[in-house]
């Protein structure tokens, strides 16, 4: 039988059985569109999803329980592994919360370094999205192109913190002194590496350039537009009800950015815009993130001009005993609101640490948003939410 005949036969077979009974489709547990392990159990009628149940927990590491037997300094290493793409940005609200409980304030220079590194990680996280999301939609070119540029940024981060992903660079009362080894007793701090600001300025030019390149490759791409415009629309009231935050919330027309409303780190001394869109579809979520990279570049350029000289650490006791109290501390992570509810009973370890991780809430809308969608749109919608499974499972 020739190939053509085979094709005709199979088409005939399909046309006879066009009545497709509902079935249950198991997707995963692998990574269908993002990093980590997620399983979806979908009930489908033909190509249409009628009900979907995400199954999570494959990466549950029990950080909230572990935190009850860890000192505050040790917890810092745990929390930057919650959302591993934005490690530093997870440390910031935790450390700020502990500082609030202890009544300690980091020196100005340390605050600015925190701000600059947070924005580095925001660009890094968004660039990962910019490389992987088009790939999920079938555009392979941006992947390597964008990842290559991201590497320049990761090198900067490594130059300051010594790590590419898990910096563990915050300390209660400042940032890590004595970078670059040396004996523990040496009291002088090494500060930022030599030539850092010049390198930052150069890298920021590259980031501007890659944003333009992404615009050329992706933003105007007809196929990408066809796959994302008016797909997976999340209205503002639903986004708020499910606790979506960050770019996912702002794409639905809610102009809400913790960098503007909460007074943490010296964001109030910087001129930047909150990027938002009104459509709430996959394309808008993509555009908000692209716009945020440009804003972060703006923020970093201003920050390296303003950053004052000075110490990196306030004086704190070597053994941290946090006074009794309860605090909720949150900050704008690349993916949205990241917060910690810290309950201290006056000891070296917290009595309870609730981690409000961003992706957990962002993903909880899946059963609602994927209802009555087509299977081919599933990856487009899930990818556009930009979640990290480690952040979902904690």
């Amino acid at each position: 039988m020739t190939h053509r005949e085979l094709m005709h036969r199979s088409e005939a077979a399909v046309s006879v059985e066009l009545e497709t009974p509902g079935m249950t489709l198991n997707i995963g547990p692998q990574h269908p569109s993002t990093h980590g392990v997620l399983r979806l159990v979908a009930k489908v009628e033909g190509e249409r999803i009628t009900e979907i149940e995400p199954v999570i927990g494959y990466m549950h590491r029990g950080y909230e329980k572990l935190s009850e037997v860890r000192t505050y300094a040790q917890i810092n290493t745990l929390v930057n592994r919650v959302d591993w793409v934005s490690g530093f940005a997870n440390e910031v609200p935790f450390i700020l919360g502990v500082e609030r409980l202890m009544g300690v304030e980091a020196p100005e220079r340390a605050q600015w370094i925190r701000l600059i590194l947070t924005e580095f990680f925001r660009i890094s996280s968004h660039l990962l999205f910019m490389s992987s999301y088009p790939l999920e939609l079938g555009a392979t070119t941006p992947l390597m192109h964008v990842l290559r540029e991201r590497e320049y940024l990761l090198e900067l981060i490594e130059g300051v913190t010594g790590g590419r992903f898990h910096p563990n660079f915050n300390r209660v009362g400042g940032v890590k002194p004595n970078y670059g080894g040396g004996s523990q007793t040496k009291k002088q701090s090494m500060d930022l590496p030599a030539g850092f600001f010049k390198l930052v300025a150069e890298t920021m030019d590259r980031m501007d350039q890659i944003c333009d390149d992404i615009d050329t490759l992706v933003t105007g791409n007809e196929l990408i537009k066809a796959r994302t415009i008016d797909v997976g629309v999340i209205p503002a009231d639903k986004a708020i009800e499910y606790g979506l935050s960050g770019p996912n919330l702002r794409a639905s027309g809610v102009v809400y950015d913790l960098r503007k409303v909460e007074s943490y780190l010296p964001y109030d001394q910087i001129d930047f815009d909150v990027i938002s869109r009104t459509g709430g579809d996959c394309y808008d979520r993509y555009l908000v993130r692209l716009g945020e990279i440009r804003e972060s570049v703006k923020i970093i350029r201003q920050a390296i001009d303003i950053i004052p000289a000075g110490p990196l650490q306030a004086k704190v006791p070597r053994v941290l005993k946090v006074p009794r109290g309860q605090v909720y501390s949150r900050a704008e992570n690349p993916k949205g609101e990241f917060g910690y509810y810290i309950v201290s009973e006056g000891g070296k370890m917290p009595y309870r640490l609730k981690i409000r991780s961003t992706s957990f809430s962002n993903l909880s809308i899946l059963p609602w948003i994927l209802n009555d969608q087509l299977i081919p749109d599933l990856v487009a919608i899930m990818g556009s939410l930009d979640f990290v499974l480690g952040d979902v499972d904690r």
Partner: protein
Amino acid sequence: MSDQPDTSGDTDVNPLEDYASEMSERLGAQEFSVEFDTVRVLVERDKWVETINAARKELPFFSWLSAIDWSRDTEVGEGVSDPEDLEERFEVMCRLSSVTSADGVIFVATLPKDDATIGSLTATIGGAEWHEREAHEMFGIMFEGNTNLVPLYLPDDFIGNPLLKSFPLIAREVKPWPGDVDVEALPEADDEGGAS
């Protein structure tokens, strides 16, 4: 917050105090506290769903829901500072916030240990389902009205509620930590060396 590290009572004027008192009065809540810029409003268990739905008119954003196990029986961690005075209980907490300002309130309901049941928010807040499922498996709290309280993180056949203070960290008991890290004594508390 960076420019006002501690506003927990020493200062005379605290706008958050006014905000919290007005809020709890309007909602008919029992009492409130403002600590480190964190507003907690205590709600009676029977009015939990009703109060939170009323509060969502001005604080629409559902941030999170979780619980604390206040317990003397601690297998892990350091425990509470004054075990004699402790009232054994669960505290269920739900944080709502504004989407235009920094306003946010943590609503707290106290549940007795032998009757840890509270109304579910899922009828009006879709996002509460996962948070309630997590609190259910981790603490054993029942949310009446949540029809899908199946385990979220834990395996289906898991026994116990891991975030209870009485629940040991089993991994450590089965297999001791291989390194010396935990064996090494922590520096003495009176060693005020200073890191800078």
